């Protein structure tokens, strides 16, 4: 280590929750190792202990301001087991699904238009002053408005199904606490055709860009990997409920149809001394080979089909690029994400036309249990919530595996690959080099914000430091 130099990319948020990229160079300025440090939420699993189990679906939303709905639903699914088992009334399950597809729609739209489209529309090397959503608004105003309105539509669905935009209380152990009124339904139906059109257009942008630039994008931060998600029992993509499936880089199944209650028999978690984050891996393959990707790319790769027609047609086009084999191109995450965006819009349409959403049978009760596990496909990937509850209804154990944790190793690999291809031999942090590292991480849409957000944030800063701690080069943005 004595001969290594370090490039550090450190977005420092106010208190914690910051990510930092460290690229270790040797004396010849060749990349030796790349590490993405993420300060994960700390102490939550302790914080929730001792609290009544029925509080969990609301309390877990405090974990993260970016994906509170995912935590809300995963916790509610786990607590269903405590009070009733997994079979909910049709109204309860469909209301939860509408909530989930609404959040998937808004999350994917926000990521694509806010964070990704500037890179695609202006190029990775464009001036950062214009390579942002404001730049998009100036040059492509209709796209900027579209992104805002898509996000807003999803947020309104969340509000109608969860009760509130933040701290939603809709999903409760054993069901849901409200249905969808006809007025709410008609309001969403009135805008639906427009959103279907926007979703198709978003998919076209992502697909055309990927296909047109395939030669450049294919090697960018890419590597072979395993992929993991839940899938429905018939092999269909199902973002809300299913059993675990993992495949290898060639599409061979490592395990399939694993019951949620046996997740810990197939997945283990490793701790490394340089990161607060855990590194999950497929137990049968071990930590060296058992890491896997989650999220849109993994889900498109693992499922056998998508049960909505337009997204299924798009999936077939996507899989044709790699002749039906799993797609291991990191930058293909964006295309996969937009297929899911269209799938979410189709599912919202399907649900809004289902009269079960106006049903009044909202909650079921069954045998009391002491353990519950809820697994859901959050926008960023598979999310695990596992709880034990004592006879006094208090939570005694909580274990969470969040999607960004599962993508921890893949993001490290992506950064290293980009660093090897673009940074080696250049002992200076340039804007273009920094942005390529960011672009690779951004493909995974990581959630690094299990943190606080207030005035006083510091900008992203990049440092090149030698083995003795001397700063060779420094660059900030923001």
């Amino acid at each position: 280590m004595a001969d290594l130099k370090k490039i550090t990319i450190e977005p420092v948020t106010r208190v914690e929750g910051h990510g930092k990229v460290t690229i270790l160079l040797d004396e010849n300025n060749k990349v030796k190792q790349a590490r993405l440090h993420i300060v994960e939420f700390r102490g939550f699993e302790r914080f929730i202990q001792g609290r009544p189990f029925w509080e969990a679906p609301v309390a877990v939303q405090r974990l993260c301001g970016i994906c509170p709905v995912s935590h809300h639903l995963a916790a509610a699914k786990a607590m269903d087991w405590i009070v009733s088992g997994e079979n909910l009334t049709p109204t309860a399950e469909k209301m939860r699904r509408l909530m989930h597809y609404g959040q998937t729609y808004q999350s994917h739209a926000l990521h694509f238009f806010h964070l990704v489209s500037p890179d695609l529309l202006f190029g990775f090397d464009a001036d950062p002053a214009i390579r942002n959503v404001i730049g998009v608004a100036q040059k492509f105003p209709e796209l900027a408005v579209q992104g805002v309105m898509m996000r807003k539509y999803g947020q309104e669905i969340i509000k109608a199904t969860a009760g509130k935009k933040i701290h939603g209380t809709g999903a409760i152990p054993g069901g849901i606490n409200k249905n969808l009124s006809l007025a709410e339904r008609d309001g969403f139906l009135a805008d639906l055709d427009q959103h279907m059109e926007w979703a198709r257009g978003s998919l076209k942008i992502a697909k055309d860009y990927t296909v047109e630039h395939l030669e450049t994008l294919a090697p960018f931060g890419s590597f072979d990997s395993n992929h993991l998600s839940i899938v429905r029992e018939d092999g269909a993509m199902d973002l809300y409920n299913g059993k675990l499936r993992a495949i290898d880089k060639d599409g061979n199944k490592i395990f399939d149809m694993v019951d949620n209650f046996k997740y810990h028999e197939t997945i283990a978690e490793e701790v490394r001394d340089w990161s607060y984050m855990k590194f999950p891996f497929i137990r049968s393959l071990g930590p060296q080979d058992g890491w896997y990707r989650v999220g849109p790319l993994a889900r498109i790769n693992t499922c056998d089909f998508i049960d909505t027609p337009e997204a299924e047609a798009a999936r077939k086009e996507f899989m044709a690029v790699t002749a039906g084999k799993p797609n291991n191109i990191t930058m293909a995450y964006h295309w996969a994400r937009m297929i899911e965006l269209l799938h979410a819009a189709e599912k919202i349409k399907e649900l809004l036309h289902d009269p079960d959403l106006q049903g009044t049978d909202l909650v079921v009760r069954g045998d009391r249990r002491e353990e519950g596990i809820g697994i859901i496909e959050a926008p960023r990937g598979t999310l695990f919530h596992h709880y034990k509850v004592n006879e006094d209804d208090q939570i005694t154990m909580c274990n969470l595996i969040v999607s960004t944790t599962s993508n921890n190793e893949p993001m490290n690999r992506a950064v290293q690959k980009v660093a090897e291809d673009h940074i080696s031999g250049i002992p200076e942090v340039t804007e273009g080099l920094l942005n390529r590292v960011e672009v690779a991480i951004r493909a995974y849409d990581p959630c690094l914000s299990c943190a606080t957000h207030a005035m006083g944030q510091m900008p992203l800063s990049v440092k090149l430091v030698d083995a003795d701690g001397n700063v060779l080069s420094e660059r900030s943005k923001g």
Partner: protein
Amino acid sequence: MPTTLVIGYGNPGRLDDGLGPALADRLEALGIPGVTVDSDYQLTVEDAAAVAQHDVVVFADAHVSCDPPFSFTRMEPDPGGILSFSSHHAEPEAVLALAKEAFGKTPAAFALGIRGYEFNEFGEQLSESARRNLDAALEFLVPRLQNQLILSEEEV
């Protein structure tokens, strides 16, 4: 009557980071005519649509370093507050910039930063000092909203 939007944002599960939503909760309970109150974990792009529909906007958030009890400053659109690394969070100046560029509207905008002290643990209560600062911020803001006074940072 000019319309005013107050957005209180932050994470109520992170102690004093919940100052913004706490202010929003108390304001909403007052039901002041002409004032719309919103609350969220953080600002995001869709807030630009709501911002563009009002004459005056107040962004209320916890502040880590201002002089207690609070700061109140005029804001102008600035795209520099858009983060690009991974967060879906946007700074208020960037939301204003998006409202200007995408919707053609630039309301008079102010940042109300309420001094907080404890952020680094999970917990759903404000510190005692933060609570006092919240009271002071409300004492300043509420009469101005009730009487439709033009907001000015010079008054602070």
